[in-house]
């Protein structure tokens, strides 16, 4: 009974993260929605590993690596956002259209 509640909750958080990532005009909001996506995926992995692979913990170990990748990508993303803000003074996503011609 608990398994599908957690799965549905994380699927909902994943879809909300994708929705916010696509429709956000702010770079910081897009990066926070990316963290939401990765967190929802992590809890799904850990839930599946708890219910099906209790001796081997495969999902739990993979979620450790996903946490590491999320932390790295958050740091690099915030560095890039801050350097873009320093150059262009705004954090809108659709401001760089120089390649459109």
């Amino acid at each position, binding site marked *: 009974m608990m398994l599908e*509640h957690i799965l549905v909750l994380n699927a909902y958080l994943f879809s909300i993260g994708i929705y916010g990532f696509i429709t956000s005009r702010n770079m910081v*909001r897009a990066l926070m929605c990316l*963290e939401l996506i990765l*967190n929802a995926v992590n809890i799904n992995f850990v839930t599946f590993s708890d219910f099906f692979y209790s001796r081997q913990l495969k999902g739990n*170990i993979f979620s*450790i*690596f996903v946490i*590491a990748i999320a932390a790295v990508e958050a*740091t690099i993303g915030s560095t890039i956002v801050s350097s873009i803000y320093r150059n262009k003074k705004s954090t809108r996503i659709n401001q760089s259209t120089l390649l459109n011609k």
Partner: protein
Amino acid sequence: MILSVLSSPALVSGLMVARAKNPVHSVLFPILVFRDTSSLLLLLGLDFSAMIFPVVHIGAIAVSFLFVVMMFHIQIAEIHEEVLRYLPVSGIIGLIFWWEMFFILDNETIPLLPTQRNTTSLRYTVYAVKVRSWTNLETLGNLLYTYYSVWFLVPSTIFKALSWGVSLLK
């Protein structure tokens, strides 16, 4: 009951991340989501993962984003005039995802439709758990440093790339 009490703020806060007017609020609402997901892990009995998730996600990731947002005075108001433009197409794509899940999840192992399950007829107690049970940390360490030790060393190259990237972007 505890599950629904702990997970309902996650539902609301997840939506508020995408829809908050102030960008500072959209960095603060995931903190509530991370707190709720770590409490879900506590209900599953995984104590180590439930403690590591707030430490990494809230303490490192959300705090660094908070630094970025609050140091740079990112503009406050976002005009949501074209939010509903994407809703028909993305709604259809979301429904196709949801419909495809029913092909993958068969009802025997992961029940999605309400089924009559007889969970109280057989009782099998595992006595090995009562003698000495492994903690979550012990089981993770048993696997991570022996069988998956090469996998454990590979993210060190990713952290190397992180340090190079941060130092080059300064």
